[in-house]
């Protein structure tokens, strides 16, 4: 009997796990680029498509000029200047992959979720600086200033802002990420991002597309002087799933309300005793969230940041992981 229950739980856990870990990671490796390639022309298409993600690209053959996104696997992290617009400063793709996307975002860049993926939540993605922009900020060039200025104290910054479109409307929320920040009083804290860094976009919620914009402190009469480039890779998506589908079969652990903003209650199956339950919570990036005193059947989420969490409920015999959304 116990083995059968175990088996059932394992199956259901597997289903749960699959459903919950059914986040998609768009790794951009589907382009099969030969080594050291910069693909900036999507014609005849108007976008580079990888899984459910479309990265718009426009190539002007008369002027050999591209805008939007390009796909790259070049590894030159040494050469400054516009000729090295194809390289990410990290030297390769994120999480050990080879390919990444480069954005020219002078007027903003859009990332679209295609077809059934529209409405998913983009949990996050990895971002880093493009080599051209990096060296322009670090050393200056003929048109853009060296960040910090001649004294080193200028409070310069290079900011990436992400917003979302849902049903044609631009949402008010935004996620800010500093690709370079020289605003610190203590200059030793000044930095320009050089490695792949994960940014959590889950707080934006369901989206049809994302809008990326760049702003800089180095602005002249022609607008932003800092080269308007950045790189992304490993886009994590959480498809739209209803709570019912996530929990299929097996003992019904569930959380209510879900989404929640104040307090969450755990509904346990009849045969599980409350004192035999322990609960761990992880946020969307996999970091553990402190639960304070061991909760029994309810816990407060009133001071948690909005977003998606995973609640892992242990009993002596089984483990279940349930996604929980915190909203305000």
């Amino acid at each position, binding site marked *: 009997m116990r083995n059968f229950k175990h088996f059932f739980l394992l199956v259901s856990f597997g289903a749960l796990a699959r459903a919950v870990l059914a986040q998609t990671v768009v790794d951009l490796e589907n382009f099969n680029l030969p080594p050291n390639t910069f693909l900036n022309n999507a014609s005849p298409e108007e976008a580079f498509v990888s899984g459910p993600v479309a990265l718009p690209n426009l190539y002007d053959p008369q002027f*050999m000029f591209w805008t939007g996104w390009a796909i790259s696997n070049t590894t030159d992290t040494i050469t400054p200047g516009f000729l090295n617009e194809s390289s990410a400063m990290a030297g390769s793709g994120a999480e050990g992959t080879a390919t990444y996307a480069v954005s020219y975002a002078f007027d903003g860049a859009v990332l679209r979720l295609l077809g059934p993926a529209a409405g998913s939540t983009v949990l996050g993605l990895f971002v880093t600086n493009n080599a051209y922009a990096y060296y322009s900020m670090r050393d200056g060039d003929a048109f853009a200033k060296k960040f910090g200025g001649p004294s080193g104290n200028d409070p310069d910054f290079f900011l990436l802002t992400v917003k979302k479109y849902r049903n044609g409307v631009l949402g008010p929320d935004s996620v800010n990420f500093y690709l370079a920040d020289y605003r610190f009083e203590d200059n030793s804290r000044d930095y320009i991002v050089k490695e792949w860094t994960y940014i959590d976009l889950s707080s934006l919620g369901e989206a049809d597309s994302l809008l990326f914009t760049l702003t800089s402190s180095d602005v002249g009469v022609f607008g932003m002087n800092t080269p308007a480039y950045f790189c992304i890779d490993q886009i994590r998506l959480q498809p739209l799933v209803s709570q019912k589908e996530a929990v299929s079969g097996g003992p019904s652990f569930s959380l209510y309300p879900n989404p929640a903003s104040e307090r969450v209650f755990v509904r346990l199956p009849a045969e599980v005793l409350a004192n035999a339950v322990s609960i761990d919570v992880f946020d969307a990036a996999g970091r553990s969230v402190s639960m304070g005193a061991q909760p029994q059947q309810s816990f407060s989420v009133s001071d948690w940041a909005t977003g998606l969490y995973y609640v892992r409920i242990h009993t002596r015999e089984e483990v279940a992981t349930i996604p929980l959304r915190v909203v305000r």
Partner: protein
Amino acid sequence: MGDDVFLYRHFLPLFRVRCLALSAGALLKWVTIGVAQSDSAFLLSPVDVIAPVVRSQPAGSRVERLDSAQLSWHLSESAADVLLRRSGFYVRSYGLGSLATTSARGGGSAQTAVLWNGLPLQSPMLGQLDFSLLPVLFVDELAVQYGGSSAAWGSGAVGGALLLNNTSRWSPGLSLSVREGRGSFGWQQRSGTLRYGRQHWATSTRLFAEEAQNDFSFRAAPTLPYRRQTNARLQQQGVLQEIFLRPRSEGATLSLRVWWQNTFRQIPPTITQRRSQAEQTDALLRTSAHWRKALRHSVWELRAAYFDESIRYRDALSRQDTRNAFQTGLGEAELTRRFGKYLDAQLILNCSHTRATTPAYGTSVVQRRTALYSVGQWQGRRLRVQVDGRLEWIDGRRVPFTPSIGMEGQLSPHGQLQARLARHYRAPTLNDRYWRPGGNPSLRPEQGWSQEIGATYRRAVWKGDVALSATAFHRHIYDWILWARRQGQLFFSPQNIAEVRTRGLEARLGLQQSFLAKGQVRLSIGYDHVRSTNERPVVNPRIEAGTQLFYVPKHQVQAELWVQWDHLQVIVFHEYTDAVIGLNETVSAFRLGTLRLQYARDARKAHLLLFLCVENAWDAHYQVVERRPMPGRHFRAGIQAGLCR
């Protein structure tokens, strides 16, 4: 606007181009600016068979001339340095030995024409010229024409024109002169002139070699420590070879000229740049042939020229290596005829063919121009009136007809009045038309009208004289070409979207006196006021209607004191330039002073000259172009010796 700065910004990465003898007579001419032409005109005997060079003496236009005696103070320098000290043109200098462009009467840097013996030198790709590459050594006469004359000189003579002339020298015998200079920051210059003449031919060779480290100390801001300029070396050589032929003493003359010059310059980092390994080589070959024949009532001139110029830009850091080049062949036929006692007319036909190559064009491009110019001049005892006009076709398309009318009248023995009305145009450059991305082959030329009125007063005072002049001008140019980015446009492209109205005032005061038999003193003060405003707003670049153009100062004041005592001459020069609006920041106003000493001994067959210059004498901390440092006080000294037989 700051066209050259803009071009540097956008063209620099892809193509380097994105990228002026103090003797009594000399200062007298400098002082009697408005009167010079009329004086010489009135002194000419009416039965003189040689007709005046009508096109080069525009009536009603303000022209300031420097002859070889005045230019002798600047033999170690370029035209940029002369214009900086001797004219109301605003010179944008990018640093010691670096690029220098001009703004004449509030115009853009492509709105100053440069003519070498009547032949246009501006680059057809950029429409402008680097004035630091015009050595004064190669020039015998320099004339600064304010307001330009599109009729006479064609495209680009909108704000002003710089006329560089070589005179034919027929003095027989041999003369040789060598000059050696040394100065701060590793500056060295060596030059020589060799002339030999016989009855029917003469030759003149001028050559120079110059180098400098330009590693001057500067501070990015008064609160920051001094540091040395890096990557600023300069190395330059050039030769001007002239041959004059005159088979029969009163017959035709032929002047052949070859001007070869090679300049290597490292491009230093800006104040907001950590380092630079960029360098640029400008190579040019300019050849010309002038044939002139004077008849009883007319003069024929035929001119032919071939220019081959290139710029190579390299940057080891960003791995760039681009070469941009153009070759131009041009021919000009000119007929000047005198009709009766008072009337002169000139007719000029000009054809040119240019081929230009740069990676950004894709293939090389070709431009053909044909122009017809005609001028009529009526000269009476006290009045001179000129009417002229130009018809031009560029690649088969006609550009606006540009007429002008000017007058000069002697109101009294001391006073003169002059006025001028002219139409101007500037054709789009090859970069404007063919650059990828953005080039627009169907751009219209910039065009507009200008008006000016001036008065000059001169009279003898005690042991010398005083001269005063003032000129007021107004110019309106529309269809002004600006590289801009429209909403939703992917890249910058040149568009006829700007409109500029310029008005201003030029005032000059000159005073000269002799004293104590051996001494002479001269004082000249000049003031230039220019309000050059954008009449229409632009989104990108961000321009508000009514604002002053980028890099055009509202006020410039120059003062020069010259003292001669026996063999010694001293000049003290001081200037004030008002603040200008830059592309990223405002460039503050600055005051600059120069001290020069010259000691000259002349014997019958030899001469010796020693010179000393103190530049930036008051050690001012200043910039002319934003983010480009300028040196503090520095020195140049040298010696010149010559023989003639």
